[in-house]
């Protein structure tokens, strides 16, 4: 298994104290694909906050399978508070979700901007407060 690094493409990765950072390599690859300072045109991504990785979810959850990650803050601001009124935050969240859609191994892409599973619309409750990425 792999660990999500504390910096990805120059973007600082912060972790909630409860995070168990033990994930499938594909999760790290997905983050390497999406998390970049210039992911959103005209806005700089400098920090993300991982609220959950392979913790806090019971099997068969993708989290428990080490195949999912949740991001709840961008540049130090909670998505739940900043989205959609904080335009730089919105642009970055939208760009992260849009970019994940170009990752070959994507599975679930849930957040305030998109709710897609395997590239298709998949309405689920919640996820206005964080981004949930899972991989196959």
């Amino acid at each position, binding site marked *: 298994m792999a660990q999500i690094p504390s910096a990805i493409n120059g973007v600082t990765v912060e972790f909630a104290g409860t995070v168990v950072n033990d994930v499938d390599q594909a999760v790290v690859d997905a983050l390497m694909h999406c998390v970049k300072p210039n992911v959103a045109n005209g806005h700089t991504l400098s920090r993300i906050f991982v609220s959950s990785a392979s913790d806090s979810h019971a099997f068969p959850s993708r989290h428990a399978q080490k195949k999912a990650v949740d991001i709840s803050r961008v540049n130090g601001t909670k998505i739940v*508070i900043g989205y959609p009124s904080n335009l730089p935050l919105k642009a970055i969240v939208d760009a992260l979700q849009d970019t994940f859609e170009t990752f070959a191994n994507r599975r679930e892409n849930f957040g305030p901007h998109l709710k897609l599973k395997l590239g298709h619309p998949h309405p*689920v*409750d919640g996820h206005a407060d964080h981004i949930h990425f899972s991989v196959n």
Partner: protein
Amino acid sequence: MITVWRKTCVFVAAVSTNWGCFNAPSRTGEGSREQAVSAQEIRSQLSRLGGRYEWNDAVQSYVFTDKQAIAEIVGEGSIATIDQLVECLDDQTRSATVLKGKQLPTGVLCREALGQIIYYETTGPNGDIAAKWPGNIEPTATGADLQAAKRAWREVVAKKLYRRL
């Protein structure tokens, strides 16, 4: 509203400090009382907060207009605050917050506040996120919806299945 809250905090802290000075052995107990008073005050603050829910096309949902004011009220969200907000979820007392001019139940504001602190993901049998969970409600929630949300959140909080945002 934020100013009133801050003044309340200062007042409660001052009272606690005074008690502590005169009766040091009881400070832990008084601290607990202070926490309970503060948590109780949160419900009142939320109920009086005002603001409104407006439809937002980008998120295809109603969005509260003054999220930052709630953040100021709940702060980091202590365990006591989380407990109090869960217990408040089925409070159908009319708040000062409106949706299309209609006053909403206080429980809706408690859900808004709880949702700034923690979240929960429920899983389907195949491991993917489940489509529905009664703890997630819209500001248009009925009394039955609010009661169901309270039951769902009580279980999640009791089992500590939530994540902090």
